[in-house]
């Protein structure tokens, strides 16, 4: 049964969708592609430099590259630059590991007024918390399954 309230809601929603700015889909895909590709290229560049200059290789090299990118991502977020990139690129700036750093620093800065413990340190994990929880839980599960597979077969 439709109540008057539902009708009002429907009208309101159609009004919102009419007046909301239309995101140009092809353009947003192109922006995500080139900014995402550019961030990954920066990673590849850092990788080349580290392997040539520091003589690193394998897992250690990969770890240093992620540390460098996380440093850059959190630094640029602190300066306020990364949020501007985010407005332009959407998914292109969210998915790279620099976006992960951004999702940590952004809420941490915003809630600094609530103190350095329950503000900054606690709010760091509003987005990173679920990522670490699901990531670690799933990796333990994968480890256990493979442990059983290796032992049984």
């Amino acid at each position, binding site marked *: 049964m439709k109540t008057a309230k539902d009708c009002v809601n429907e009208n309101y929603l159609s009004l919102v969708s009419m007046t909301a700015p239309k995101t140009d889909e092809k353009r947003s895909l192109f922006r995500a592609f080139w900014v995402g590709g550019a961030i990954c290229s920066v990673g590849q560049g850092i990788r080349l430099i580290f392997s040539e200059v520091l003589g690193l290789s394998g897992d250690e090299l990969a770890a240093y590259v992620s540390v460098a990118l*996380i440093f850059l991502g959190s630094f640029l977020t602190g300066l306020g630059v990364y949020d501007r990139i985010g407005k332009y690129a959407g*998914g292109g700036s969210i998915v790279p*590991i620099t976006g*992960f750093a951004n*999702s940590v620093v952004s809420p941490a800065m915003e809630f600094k007024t609530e103190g350095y413990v329950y503000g900054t340190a606690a709010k760091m994990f509003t*987005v990173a918390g679920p*990522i670490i929880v699901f990531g670690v839980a799933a990796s333990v599960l994968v480890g256990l399954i493979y442990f059983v597979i290796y032992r049984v077969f």
Partner: protein
Amino acid sequence: MDILLTFLKVILVGGGICTVAQILINYTKLTAGKILVIFLIAGLILQSFGVYQYLVDFGGSGATVPISGFGYLLAKGAMEGAKESLFMAITGGITSAGAGIASVIVFGYIFAVIFKAKSKKN
């Protein structure tokens, strides 16, 4: 020329993964946090079947820099640990992802303390 081809592959794979994320954002209105979790778990599941390794071998940083590469690391560490012992099977994932998690926490806290939040209006 070799280096040019490498970067071309990096852009192709990295940009491709980000484009998939943008398609998800356009059509489902998922928030950034959920997108990150979905890509992390996708990378982890793909690697637990050994698939993501091919993407890493082809695209280099294009596959490891997106958050799905973080999931790949978690799965890879867990699978390598499972060969050794039960203890290593449980700790392997977080050991290989340890550098990323530690640096996010340390740099994140330092920069959040140093810098002030910018006004959203700009």
